[in-house]
């Protein structure tokens, strides 16, 4: 065992030295931007978003985000598929404390609202669909912790999840139809809505639309994963 640990430490030290050696030629804090500079220069004109990260995520690297959403979808589907049992129910025996239950009940709408705020304002402030969706999921998670019998309406969630995903692809396909490119920002570039509004809510083309979809999707998916993990198969 000691031998194994020693060998492992030796291994990781060697690998670490190698990677560090390579990293020493990629100086920390230096300006290495090439495409990044282009984004910073053109982001406002091309997408209308103030938050460049959001613009990159949704507009410039839309495929990545589509893939990312898909990965999460696969995870929730996979989790549901693998934990699928004939009969499933919650097995928690004790309710949460009074503080927790009341607190949850009280906080739930606010947390959801906050999540919604995060993803709707994704193009203006830090945040966006993913943290927003996660926040919403946290709200549901809290309900699970607080109440022993609580269940999300997972059928409805599943359909919502699917519809949201379809919505995303459909937005992309509308772009293909209107602008002849998949995931083309037709709201901003073809219709030209919100050009005067840069820096305010109603701007940035389809970013809010897509982030709303993503937020809903991520929220439902993560809640779905939690739901699947919590419920155990009946005997």
């Amino acid at each position: 065992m000691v031998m194994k640990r020693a060998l492992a430490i030796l291994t990781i030290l060697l690998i670490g030295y190698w990677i560090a050696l390579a990293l020493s030629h990629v100086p920390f804090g230096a300006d290495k931007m090439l495409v990044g500079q282009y984004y910073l220069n053109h982001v406002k004109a091309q997408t209308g978003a103030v938050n460049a990260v959001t613009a990159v995520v949704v507009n410039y690297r839309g495929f990545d985000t589509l893939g990312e959403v898909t990965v999460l979808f696969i995870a929730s589907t996979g989790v549901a598929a693998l934990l699928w049992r004939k009969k499933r129910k919650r097995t928690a025996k004790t309710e949460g404390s009074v503080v927790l239950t009341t607190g949850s009940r009280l906080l739930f709408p606010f947390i959801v609202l906050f999540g919604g705020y995060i993803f709707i304002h994704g193009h203006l402030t830090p945040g966006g669909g993913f943290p927003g969706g996660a926040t919403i999921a946290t709200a549901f998670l809290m309900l699970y912790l607080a109440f022993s019998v609580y269940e999300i309406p997972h059928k409805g969630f599943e359909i919502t999840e699917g519809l949201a995903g379809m919505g995303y692809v459909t937005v992309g396909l509308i772009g293909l139809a209107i602008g002849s490119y998949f995931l083309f920002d037709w709201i901003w570039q073809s219709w030209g809505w919100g050009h005067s509004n840069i820096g305010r809510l109603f701007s940035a083309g389809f970013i809010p639309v897509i982030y709303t979809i993503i937020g809903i999707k991520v929220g439902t998916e993560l809640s779905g994963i939690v739901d699947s993990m919590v419920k155990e198969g009946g005997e």
Partner: protein
Amino acid sequence: MSIGVYYFGAVSLILIGLYAVLVKKNLLKILVGLSIMETGVNLLLISIGYIAGRSAPILSEGVGPNNAVDPIPQALVLTAIVIGVATTALALTVAINLYETYKTLNIEELRRLRG
């Protein structure tokens, strides 16, 4: 050879994660290791995108195109985080299934498929 503290932290996380995978016998521990590795990689990506003295790439007042850090690694890391949590969730699910079948998480005993 000198690397910044962030690089050092990131690489350390990757290596600690790898160490866990290589040494720990408990499946969940291995997954914790993988998760730490992913965090390390994310930190590495972000540190590569950092430019000294610049601020976050949100181009509101006071932040111009020449005054912001690289947005791309941040976008990449957003994706990577989500992918990481997706993998983790799936892996844990599989671990649950394994435990329900074999009643153990010791990888030395999970060796029905071999040879």
